[in-house]
């Protein structure tokens, strides 16, 4: 069976992947995670659990966080087994 996809001239409710569909978070975030990369064991638990997918753990450099979209939920700090992530109030 064959399917021919022929786009429509009409507007159709089809969305496409994009970063930041709900905007950046800096203006309303209450707390931000701060990482002590010396204490970090590179266990990846913070990266795996981050609901916004803004944490990257690299074996050499440790943890980096994209604060543009971090919601400050603090989940990363709670799952960190060595307490290397602290939540600090936004100024």
């Amino acid at each position, binding site marked *: 069976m064959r399917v021919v996809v022929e786009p429509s001239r009409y507007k159709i409710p089809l969305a496409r992947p994009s970063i930041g569909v*709900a905007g950046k978070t800096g203006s309303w975030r209450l707390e931000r995670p701060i990482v002590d990369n010396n204490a970090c064991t590179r266990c990846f638990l913070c990266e795996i659990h981050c609901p916004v*997918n803004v944490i990257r*753990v690299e074996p050499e450099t440790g943890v980096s966080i994209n604060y*543009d979209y971090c919601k400050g*939920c*603090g989940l990363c700090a709670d799952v960190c087994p060595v307490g290397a992530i602290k939540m600090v109030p936004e100024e």
Partner: protein
Amino acid sequence: MSKPALPYKARDVVLPGDAACPGCPIPIAWKVLSAVFGDKMILVIPASCSSVVVGMYPGNSLKASVIHVPFASAAAVASGVAEALEKRGVSDVQVIAWAGDGGTADIGMASLSGAAERNHNFIYIMYDNEAYMNTGIQRSSSTPRGAWTTTTPILGKGEEKKDVARIMIAHGVPYVATASIGYVHDFYSKLVRASKIKGFKFISLHAPCPVGWRFDPRYTVRVARLAVETGLWILYEYYDGRIHLSGPSRPLLDPSKRKPVEEYLKLQGRFKNVDEKMVKSIQEYVENNWEWVKRHM
């Protein structure tokens, strides 16, 4: 040596900047899905928080395929997608019905049951946040006894939680599992197993909601783990006609290894008003569940 799928394969599909509340378990689960299937998944999503989490047209927070569908129809739409793909010989994409407990245990029950009985080739995941969260925390049949919701505002829910996994086991489908957002590697391995089985697969995923359960958003994983550690949420797989306990729950066969349910309840504002009698009855519910599990191992 290849890099582990978690986290590496989970990096690209769930895009930052979605519309979920802080601490929401939904995108965490999607990351696990993407660790297994990458962008080769079609999520069929009925009305739920997930309808909103992915964000507004023309954007979408998932680099995968999404079909939003009416509340009761997820399993039926997924049936159609799965059959058409099979007919077309498309086999490199996983069809997943992704529904909340309301869309599964309540309004979606008939279409779920129908799809299960017909044994269509897809995975149905019920992410169970134990109430109608998108409409503002109303009671569902999957809300546990004693829990406050906006439609059980004073007395708390009087009835027991509906156990959908057991209902699905009764359908005789090839694979049923319970999973938890607190144990992502366990969830991952269950998805891997499900993906290798042809036919209907059902996974009940415990997904604590900070907003609806009234706890600090940082504790989503902690609360999920406590549900398992207290024995309230039992992690298992059902295939070949019996229950196979999963790693995190295995030691808890011994009741002395289980934490008291209070430790789970006290973290959550929704259980603020439960009295001793209710706590005792919740503890009994735990024991009864374990008895049932033991009988089917």
